[in-house]
Protein backbone atom coordinates (compact mmCIF):
# COMPACT_ATOMS: atom_id res chain seq x y z
CA UNK A 1 0.00 0.00 0.00
CA UNK A 2 2.84 2.35 0.92
CA UNK A 3 4.80 1.49 -2.22
CA UNK A 4 1.71 1.99 -4.41
CA UNK A 5 1.05 5.42 -2.93
CA UNK A 6 4.69 6.49 -3.30
CA UNK A 7 4.62 5.42 -6.93
CA UNK A 8 1.32 7.21 -7.65
CA UNK A 9 2.41 10.41 -5.88
CA UNK A 10 5.65 10.36 -7.88
CA UNK A 11 3.57 10.03 -11.03
CA UNK A 12 1.25 12.88 -9.98
CA UNK A 13 4.19 15.16 -9.11
CA UNK A 14 5.67 14.43 -12.55
CA UNK A 15 2.38 15.35 -14.18
CA UNK A 16 2.35 18.62 -12.24
CA UNK A 17 5.84 19.44 -13.48
CA UNK A 18 4.81 18.68 -17.08
CA UNK A 19 1.51 20.64 -16.92
CA UNK A 20 3.17 23.64 -15.28
CA UNK A 21 5.93 23.82 -17.90
CA UNK A 22 8.73 23.32 -15.36
CA UNK A 23 10.17 20.47 -17.44
CA UNK A 24 10.96 23.00 -20.19
CA UNK A 25 14.33 24.68 -19.43
CA UNK A 26 13.40 27.44 -21.89
CA UNK A 27 10.46 28.36 -19.68
CA UNK A 28 12.47 28.21 -16.46
CA UNK A 29 15.22 30.41 -17.93
CA UNK A 30 12.51 32.77 -19.20
CA UNK A 31 11.52 33.27 -15.56
CA UNK A 32 15.11 33.63 -14.34
CA UNK A 33 15.88 36.24 -17.04
CA UNK A 34 14.55 39.35 -15.31
CA UNK A 35 16.42 41.69 -17.62
CA UNK A 36 15.20 40.07 -20.83
CA UNK A 37 11.69 39.14 -22.00
CA UNK A 38 10.41 37.98 -18.61
CA UNK A 39 8.01 35.02 -18.31
CA UNK A 40 6.41 35.21 -14.82
CA UNK A 41 4.78 31.74 -15.15
CA UNK A 42 7.05 30.07 -12.58
CA UNK A 43 5.77 32.40 -9.86
CA UNK A 44 2.27 31.06 -10.55
CA UNK A 45 3.58 27.48 -10.29
CA UNK A 46 5.10 28.20 -6.89
CA UNK A 47 2.04 30.15 -5.79
CA UNK A 48 -0.38 27.35 -6.68
CA UNK A 49 1.84 24.69 -5.13
CA UNK A 50 2.44 26.54 -1.84
CA UNK A 51 -1.25 27.47 -1.51
CA UNK A 52 -2.25 23.79 -1.50
CA UNK A 53 0.91 22.76 0.37
CA UNK A 54 0.09 25.15 3.23
CA UNK A 55 -3.21 23.33 3.83
CA UNK A 56 -1.53 19.91 3.68
CA UNK A 57 1.31 20.78 6.05
CA UNK A 58 -1.01 22.57 8.50
CA UNK A 59 -2.89 19.27 8.92
CA UNK A 60 0.32 17.19 8.81
CA UNK A 61 2.01 19.17 11.63
CA UNK A 62 -0.82 18.21 14.02
CA UNK A 63 -0.51 14.48 13.34
CA UNK A 64 1.79 11.96 14.98
CA UNK A 65 1.15 9.26 12.35
CA UNK A 66 0.53 9.41 8.60
CA UNK A 67 -2.76 8.20 7.07
CA UNK A 68 -1.08 4.86 6.38
CA UNK A 69 0.14 4.64 9.97
CA UNK A 70 3.85 5.35 9.43
CA UNK A 71 5.83 7.79 11.57
CA UNK A 72 5.96 11.43 10.42
CA UNK A 73 9.40 12.27 9.02
CA UNK A 74 9.36 16.06 9.20
CA UNK A 75 12.69 17.93 9.08
CA UNK A 76 14.10 18.94 12.45
CA UNK A 77 17.05 21.13 11.40
CA UNK A 78 16.45 24.79 12.27
CA UNK A 79 19.81 26.49 11.93
CA UNK A 80 20.51 28.83 9.06
CA UNK A 81 24.18 28.13 8.42
CA UNK A 82 26.89 28.36 5.80
CA UNK A 83 26.06 24.93 4.38
CA UNK A 84 22.47 25.90 3.70
CA UNK A 85 23.32 29.21 2.01
CA UNK A 86 26.42 28.11 0.07
CA UNK A 87 24.74 24.90 -1.05
CA UNK A 88 21.64 26.76 -2.25
CA UNK A 89 23.76 29.38 -4.06
CA UNK A 90 25.64 26.56 -5.82
CA UNK A 91 22.38 24.86 -6.75
CA UNK A 92 20.98 28.15 -8.14
CA UNK A 93 24.05 28.64 -10.34
CA UNK A 94 23.55 25.20 -11.89
CA UNK A 95 19.82 25.84 -12.23
CA UNK A 96 20.47 29.10 -14.07
CA UNK A 97 23.13 27.53 -16.28
CA UNK A 98 20.89 24.88 -17.86
CA UNK A 99 17.34 25.55 -16.64
CA UNK A 100 16.97 22.13 -15.01
CA UNK A 101 16.38 21.39 -11.33
CA UNK A 102 16.30 17.77 -10.05
CA UNK A 103 12.61 16.87 -10.52
CA UNK A 104 12.09 18.26 -14.02
CA UNK A 105 15.41 16.74 -15.16
CA UNK A 106 14.26 13.27 -14.06
CA UNK A 107 10.88 13.74 -15.76
CA UNK A 108 12.47 15.00 -19.00
CA UNK A 109 14.84 12.03 -18.88
CA UNK A 110 11.75 9.82 -18.65
CA UNK A 111 10.46 11.53 -21.79
CA UNK A 112 13.60 10.34 -23.55
CA UNK A 113 15.41 13.68 -23.86
CA UNK A 114 19.16 12.85 -24.20
CA UNK A 115 20.38 16.15 -22.67
CA UNK A 116 18.14 15.59 -19.64
CA UNK A 117 19.69 12.12 -19.20
CA UNK A 118 23.17 13.65 -19.44
CA UNK A 119 22.18 16.25 -16.82
CA UNK A 120 20.87 13.50 -14.48
CA UNK A 121 24.12 11.52 -14.79
CA UNK A 122 26.15 14.65 -13.95
CA UNK A 123 23.77 15.48 -11.09
CA UNK A 124 24.20 12.01 -9.57
CA UNK A 125 27.98 12.44 -9.94
CA UNK A 126 27.66 15.76 -8.07
CA UNK A 127 25.68 14.05 -5.30
CA UNK A 128 28.29 11.27 -5.04
CA UNK A 129 30.99 13.93 -4.85
CA UNK A 130 29.10 15.43 -1.91
CA UNK A 131 29.03 12.02 -0.16
CA UNK A 132 32.79 11.65 -0.70
CA UNK A 133 33.52 15.13 0.64
CA UNK A 134 31.22 14.53 3.62
CA UNK A 135 33.04 11.32 4.53
CA UNK A 136 36.41 13.04 4.25
CA UNK A 137 35.26 15.90 6.49
CA UNK A 138 33.88 13.45 9.03
CA UNK A 139 37.11 11.42 9.00
CA UNK A 140 39.31 14.45 9.55
CA UNK A 141 37.22 16.34 12.10
CA UNK A 142 35.37 13.45 13.70
CA UNK A 143 32.26 15.61 13.74
CA UNK A 144 29.04 14.29 12.36
CA UNK A 145 26.54 16.73 10.95
CA UNK A 146 23.44 14.94 9.79
CA UNK A 147 20.63 17.01 8.38
CA UNK A 148 17.42 16.56 6.51
Amino acid at each position, binding site marked *: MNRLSEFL*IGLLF*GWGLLISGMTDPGKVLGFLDLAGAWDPSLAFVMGGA*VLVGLLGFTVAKKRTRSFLGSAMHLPTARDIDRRLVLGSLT*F*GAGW*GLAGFCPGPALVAMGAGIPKAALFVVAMIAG*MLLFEMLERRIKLTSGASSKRT
Partner: protein
Amino acid sequence: MNIDWVHFSPWAALTGGIVLGVASAAFVLVNGRVLGISGILGGLLVPQRSDASWRVFFLLGLILAPASLSLIAPELVGTPRIDAGNVSIVAAGLLVGLGTRYGSGCTSGHGVCGLSRLSPRSLVATLAFMASGFATVYLIRHVLA
Protein backbone atom coordinates in the same frame (compact mmCIF):
# COMPACT_ATOMS: atom_id res chain seq x y z
CA MET B 1 10.37 45.28 -17.13
CA ASN B 2 9.47 43.45 -20.34
CA ILE B 3 6.85 40.69 -20.03
CA ASP B 4 7.17 37.78 -22.46
CA TRP B 5 3.47 37.56 -23.34
CA VAL B 6 4.08 34.86 -25.96
CA HIS B 7 5.33 32.28 -23.46
CA PHE B 8 3.53 33.51 -20.32
CA SER B 9 1.05 30.77 -19.37
CA PRO B 10 -0.60 31.68 -16.05
CA TRP B 11 -3.39 29.08 -16.18
CA ALA B 12 -1.19 26.10 -17.08
CA ALA B 13 1.33 27.29 -14.46
CA LEU B 14 -1.32 27.65 -11.76
CA THR B 15 -2.97 24.32 -12.61
CA GLY B 16 0.37 22.50 -12.68
CA GLY B 17 1.34 24.24 -9.43
CA ILE B 18 -1.85 23.06 -7.74
CA VAL B 19 -1.11 19.49 -8.89
CA LEU B 20 2.41 19.82 -7.39
CA GLY B 21 0.84 21.08 -4.15
CA VAL B 22 -1.65 18.20 -4.06
CA ALA B 23 1.16 15.67 -4.58
CA SER B 24 3.30 17.30 -1.86
CA ALA B 25 0.37 17.44 0.58
CA ALA B 26 -0.57 13.83 -0.21
CA PHE B 27 3.01 12.66 0.34
CA VAL B 28 3.30 14.14 3.82
CA LEU B 29 -0.24 13.14 4.86
CA VAL B 30 -0.28 9.62 3.42
CA ASN B 31 3.39 8.63 3.72
CA GLY B 32 4.60 11.08 6.34
CA ARG B 33 7.48 12.40 4.26
CA VAL B 34 8.59 15.68 2.72
CA LEU B 35 8.49 15.54 -1.06
CA GLY B 36 12.00 16.73 -1.92
CA ILE B 37 13.45 15.28 -5.10
CA SER B 38 17.14 15.88 -4.36
CA GLY B 39 16.76 14.30 -0.92
CA ILE B 40 14.83 11.32 -2.25
CA LEU B 41 17.41 10.66 -4.99
CA GLY B 42 20.43 11.59 -2.86
CA GLY B 43 19.27 9.24 -0.10
CA LEU B 44 19.83 6.34 -2.50
CA LEU B 45 23.51 7.27 -2.77
CA VAL B 46 24.21 7.24 0.96
CA PRO B 47 25.96 4.01 1.98
CA GLN B 48 24.36 1.81 4.64
CA ARG B 49 20.81 3.03 4.18
CA SER B 50 18.06 0.44 4.12
CA ASP B 51 15.17 2.62 2.97
CA ALA B 52 15.80 2.35 -0.76
CA SER B 53 12.50 0.82 -1.84
CA TRP B 54 10.15 3.78 -1.25
CA ARG B 55 12.65 6.10 -2.94
CA VAL B 56 12.84 3.82 -5.98
CA PHE B 57 9.04 3.54 -6.28
CA PHE B 58 8.61 7.31 -6.04
CA LEU B 59 11.32 8.00 -8.63
CA LEU B 60 9.87 5.32 -10.91
CA GLY B 61 6.53 7.16 -10.84
CA LEU B 62 8.27 10.45 -11.60
CA ILE B 63 10.16 9.00 -14.57
CA LEU B 64 7.02 7.34 -15.96
CA ALA B 65 5.05 10.61 -15.77
CA PRO B 66 5.61 11.69 -19.41
CA ALA B 67 4.64 8.29 -20.87
CA SER B 68 1.50 8.02 -18.75
CA LEU B 69 0.39 11.62 -19.27
CA SER B 70 0.82 11.33 -23.04
CA LEU B 71 -1.66 8.41 -22.96
CA ILE B 72 -4.30 10.49 -21.15
CA ALA B 73 -3.64 14.03 -22.36
CA PRO B 74 -0.85 14.20 -24.96
CA GLU B 75 -1.47 17.94 -25.50
CA LEU B 76 -0.16 18.62 -21.96
CA VAL B 77 3.27 17.12 -22.70
CA GLY B 78 5.30 19.82 -24.42
CA THR B 79 8.71 19.62 -26.06
CA PRO B 80 11.46 21.13 -23.91
CA ARG B 81 13.63 23.93 -25.34
CA ILE B 82 17.23 23.24 -24.30
CA ASP B 83 19.75 25.90 -25.34
CA ALA B 84 22.65 24.72 -23.18
CA GLY B 85 25.42 22.72 -24.86
CA ASN B 86 26.70 19.42 -23.47
CA VAL B 87 29.54 21.04 -21.49
CA SER B 88 27.13 23.45 -19.79
CA ILE B 89 24.70 20.60 -19.13
CA VAL B 90 27.39 18.55 -17.37
CA ALA B 91 28.65 21.55 -15.37
CA ALA B 92 25.06 22.45 -14.42
CA GLY B 93 24.29 18.87 -13.36
CA LEU B 94 27.39 18.74 -11.13
CA LEU B 95 26.52 22.09 -9.50
CA VAL B 96 22.89 21.06 -8.95
CA GLY B 97 23.86 17.66 -7.49
CA LEU B 98 26.51 19.06 -5.17
CA GLY B 99 24.55 22.20 -4.21
CA THR B 100 21.24 20.52 -3.43
CA ARG B 101 22.89 17.95 -1.16
CA TYR B 102 25.09 20.52 0.55
CA GLY B 103 22.10 22.86 1.03
CA SER B 104 19.76 19.97 1.98
CA GLY B 105 17.14 20.57 -0.69
CA CYS B 106 15.99 21.90 -4.02
CA THR B 107 12.96 23.60 -5.59
CA SER B 108 10.58 20.91 -4.29
CA GLY B 109 11.94 20.26 -0.79
CA HIS B 110 12.83 23.85 0.16
CA GLY B 111 10.72 25.73 -2.40
CA VAL B 112 7.34 23.98 -2.32
CA CYS B 113 7.38 21.93 0.91
CA GLY B 114 9.63 24.20 2.98
CA LEU B 115 7.62 27.33 2.25
CA SER B 116 4.41 25.34 2.90
CA ARG B 117 5.81 24.32 6.29
CA LEU B 118 6.64 27.99 6.95
CA SER B 119 10.26 26.99 7.58
CA PRO B 120 12.61 30.01 7.91
CA ARG B 121 15.49 27.74 6.85
CA SER B 122 13.75 26.85 3.60
CA LEU B 123 12.81 30.48 2.96
CA VAL B 124 16.50 31.43 3.19
CA ALA B 125 17.45 28.52 0.90
CA THR B 126 14.76 29.44 -1.64
CA LEU B 127 15.80 33.10 -1.69
CA ALA B 128 19.45 32.02 -2.10
CA PHE B 129 18.91 29.66 -5.05
CA MET B 130 16.49 32.09 -6.72
CA ALA B 131 18.98 34.98 -6.38
CA SER B 132 21.80 32.80 -7.65
CA GLY B 133 19.65 31.63 -10.58
CA PHE B 134 18.73 35.21 -11.51
CA ALA B 135 22.39 36.28 -11.27
CA THR B 136 23.63 33.34 -13.36
CA VAL B 137 21.14 33.94 -16.17
CA TYR B 138 21.92 37.67 -16.11
CA LEU B 139 25.62 36.92 -16.42
CA ILE B 140 25.15 34.42 -19.25
CA ARG B 141 22.60 36.36 -21.27
CA HIS B 142 23.52 39.98 -20.64
CA VAL B 143 27.17 40.17 -19.61
CA LEU B 144 29.03 37.28 -21.28
CA ALA B 145 26.83 37.03 -24.39
